């Protein structure tokens, strides 16, 4: 199938290096200590963060740093067919782990020994790139909760179809079966905290695709910073100082 047309348009009208429309908002769940919603095109994710708080299960307590837990779930209505999704299937367990590890890499856990941070991510609508969207939402929520972090982790995916590197695959492109490289990046430190791909790709092409994903991460980081800044300004205004 043709995913990139002759003069380089993708099926949804984007060019290969363009991302989908991004919309991010802080404060989606009032109960939580920090929360955010993140949209990339039709992919819509909310994240809520609780903590740092006392460790619930004392057996899991770590003496010198905070315990980070993450739970990823997908709403039943998130895809076209309303299938019941059992909790804790392999895919969501894997995603929970990936998100937890990525977030742990930027949270300054040593500052909060013997405490626990819970991150809940839920996909409201899935259209490809949920992994990246979840990480971005979690970052925003963590920032909203005021949890100390060394940098903002942002994530973006890139794929390779019809011999063209493509940024931010949507569901249609994702199901083409080509490689899908997800990168998590600490943009200021320029460090990669997550790199996933489940296909084969020659090394030189892989480098191009990964570079494209990194560019995407940087663009998202700029956007997230702006959102946080505006949110802070708003809070400042509300406090009236």
């Amino acid at each position, binding site marked *: 199938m*043709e995913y990139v*047309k*002759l*003069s380089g*348009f993708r*099926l*949804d*009208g*984007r060019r290969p290096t*363009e991302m*989908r*429309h991004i919309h991010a908002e802080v404060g989606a769940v009032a109960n939580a200590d920090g929360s955010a919603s993140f949209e990339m*095109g*039709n992919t819509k994710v909310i994240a809520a963060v609780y903590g740092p708080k006392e460790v619930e299960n004392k057996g899991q307590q770590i003496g010198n740093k905070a315990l980070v837990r993450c739970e990823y779930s997908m709403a039943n209505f998130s895809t*076209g*067919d309303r299938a019941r999704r059992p909790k804790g299937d392999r895919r969501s367990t894997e995603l929970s782990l990936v998100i937890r590890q990525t977030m742990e890499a930027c949270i300054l856990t040593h500052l909060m020994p013997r405490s626990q941070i819970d991150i809940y991510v839920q996909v409201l609508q899935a*259209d490809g790139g949920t992994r990246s969207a979840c990480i971005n939402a979690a970052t925003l929520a963590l920032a909203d909760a005021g949890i100390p972090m060394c940098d903002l982790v942002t994530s973006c995916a890139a794929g390779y179809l019809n011999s063209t590197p493509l940024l931010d695959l*949507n569901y*249609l492109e994702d199901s083409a079966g080509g490689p899908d490289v997800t990168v998590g990046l600490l943009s200021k430190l320029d460090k990669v905290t997550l790199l996933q791909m489940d296909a*084969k790709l*020659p090394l030189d*092409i892989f480098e191009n695709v990964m570079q494209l994903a990194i560019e995407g991460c940087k663009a998202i980081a700029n956007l997230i910073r702006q959102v946080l800044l505006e949110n802070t300004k708003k809070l400042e205004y509300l406090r009236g100082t």
Partner: protein
Amino acid sequence: MLQSKSFMKMTRHGRAVKVVREHYLRDDIYCGVQYCKVCDTKDARLGSSESTILVVDTNVILHQIDLLENPAMDDVVVLDVVMEEVKNKNLSVYNRLKALCTSSQRKFFIFYNEYHKDTYVKQMVGETSNDRNDRAIRVATQWYQNHLAGSSRVLLITNDRENKRKAIEEGLSAETVESYVKSLGQPGLLDLVVVSSSEDVNVMEVEETRPSKRKAIYSEHKPMSEITHGLHRGIYHQGKLRVNRYNPFEAYVGSESIGDEIIIYGRSNMNRAFDGDIVAVELLPQDQWHDVKKLSIEDEGKDEEEGVHLVPGSADDAPRGTVPSAVPSETMNSTSCRPSGKVIGIIKRNWQSYCGSLEPMSMPAGDGGVAYALFISKDRRIPKIRIQTRQLGNLLNKRIIVAVDSWDCLSRYPSGHYVRTIGNIGDKKTEDEVILIENDINSRPFSMQVLACLPPLPWNLSPEDLMNPNRVDLRHVRVFSVDPPGCTDIDDALHCTSLSNGNFEVGVHIADVTNFVHPETPLDKEASQRGTSVYLVDRRIDMLPKPLTEDICSLRSDVERLAFSVIWEITPQAEITSTRYTKSVIKSCAALSYVEAQARMDDSRLMDPLTTDLRNLNSLAKIMRQRRIERGALTLASAEVKFQIDTETHDPLDIGIYQIREANQMIEEFMLAANISVAEKILKHFPLCSLLRRHPSPTKDMLEPLLRITASIGLDLDVSSSKALADSLDHAVGEDPYFNKLIRILATRCMTQAVYFCSGDLSPQEFHHYGLAAPLYTHFTSPIRRYADVIVHRLLAAALGISKLPPVFLDRNQLTSVSDNLNYRHRNAQMASRASVELNTVIYFRKRPTDTEARIVKIRANGFIVFVPKFGIEGPVYLVKRGEKSDWLVDEANQRVTKAGSGVNYRVLQAVKIHMEVVEHQPNRPKLELTLI
């Protein structure tokens, strides 16, 4: 840049699922007109100010692609919505359209109206998607009109009346294809226009004066829904229709559901299907399986004559024997004969354009008017095609290309339209061109992009090549090449040195083409498309550009060249003790011809080192050959002919069987050994993605014709294995010396063709090469003229760690499609060479009627087929004149025809004297005819 987004809903197969997709509309899509002041004109390609900008609709592209390909049609805007519709309806037209849009010579521009913020059209409630697309086309045309604001005319071309009416209502200018082409004032162009269905009615009315024409000749095709239903229930069978190359009234459908081939006899059972169409077939009742066949031979088979042609090289080229003819009469009605059926629907058409000429006819009274003519394709599998032309006088004696448009059940012949003229019939250049076109061979000069990939000339060995640690300097070794005389693309050379331990070091050096042809470059893509060089009698169509073929890669004498070498240590008993593969630098000391090499070996006075090397190699080769034959390799004979061509007129001067010398066999032996060694090496390193070559064992019914002949003369052939066959062929010695060769030639044509394949696609048992009796085989030794060898070179280089494996190998599907293409090209190249030899044979005999000896190879009711050993051709000899009743009786069991009431009889393999002469029954259509003397 992202403007806005909207949502589209779709339902997918089976369940209705709501799919929401984003659709970005943008403002950075430009009109593509060069003089536009508003838009970015970087990629603009549409015309100058006074030209008319054409917007075409989908049906115009689908039906009039031949017209659009004519350079007279330019400044065409192809809308995205049209592209998509074309893609969904006809992929081959889509590919041609894509080629048009990317060609730098043409002014075709794709306007992405679906992504443009002003031209995107949302489907309205109650509007069909067809109507929506038509509206989208009109909106885009409107946009163009407003955008260009009168600086040039925008014209919508559509044959849809409704669409045209609406367009004119909306203030656009719209025209039909015909009226537009007429306004251009080029009468030749009008022939390219496919008559639209609305005007077809007129054609019918004209024909109504001959009432017999009006009745349905073919049965109606079943509707698609019924076909799918029938296929599911197993009443109908689906498969690709293949028409017998030698009898266009007989076709086969390979059906998976039945596990056997279904035979289809006669045009009415074929029901308008073309060769290569995917059809649905219904089986005929079993009692008709035989009658139908008899009927077809008597009724329709007669008006088709068999021409003289070359001896088929393998079973794939030969006409398939109709098996039931051998069945004795008492089992006639049993189920042993093959199922026959009739086509009830066509699932996918394989209509292409065909080469041929018009049936001779008298000029119609009114000159310059529209005339109907029948077109006869050179490919006999294709039925005659009815075309409409305004330039009949011009076309009558020309080779032309015609495309098929439709075939309804009321007309005996399909209707088509003229595409272009190749040249005069009988003109050698034209006929060569026809051969190339028929076999889909690209003989165009290489493009600039391809030539840009060549290293600068003159090429010399660079110090970097010598410094390369992967490259061994073998310039001091006495390397030489042996090739046919006049060979300019030398891709293999050899050396042979005696070692102190009594063994020999033998090296095969192959031109290092991959050093110059890098993967994914335009050069590589072009070569992979061409697949192989094509050798016509007096012309060679190269796979790689000339500088590479004849200079940089050619291992000529006394120049330093890069090579890829396989070096063995071989004991005097011809056992290989070690094998080494390396890239190398060589300097050939002599480029010998087979004749020269043979003369050197035979001349006992010559004792120079080169001759000694040759003799050593020859003695090794003989042992290796013997061993190979003991393993069961077949020594098959072919009747390859060689022409001597006049250098001035390019007409053949002499013709004769190509002589095979010991020197040929010596070179062949080492090339085989190198190929096998390389095959082992690459398969070891890349078990899933190696390109190998296999030769499937012939099936029982492929050998059937051979067995029938040998049985009739009391010879028993054992075909249980290649070894058994080889042995019994050795024992088949008749009273005359040519007998054995004849049997071998007959055996050869029963074999299948060897094919390339990707090792991941088959299980290791299937890798076997039957003819060579080798478990593994590949092609490594001719990278200049075969692309398969280029791939194998890359694999070997990767296996040695010299270079990376190109990405194509990682994708098995891609590799499979590459190997399929190679098989296709290879086969076409062979067919083209054969056709070229046939053509030259006719030219040769045109001036030289000859008497010669021939052998009967097949018995027919009205004559027999003879094989002429001296010229390697085969053709029919008629005992009965056409139309007369035959008084000859065929005896199938003994393969013999006897004249009723007299003792005169002919049997198979018998030698007869024949007269060969070129006759012209019809003007401009010379034919070689064989008659008995």
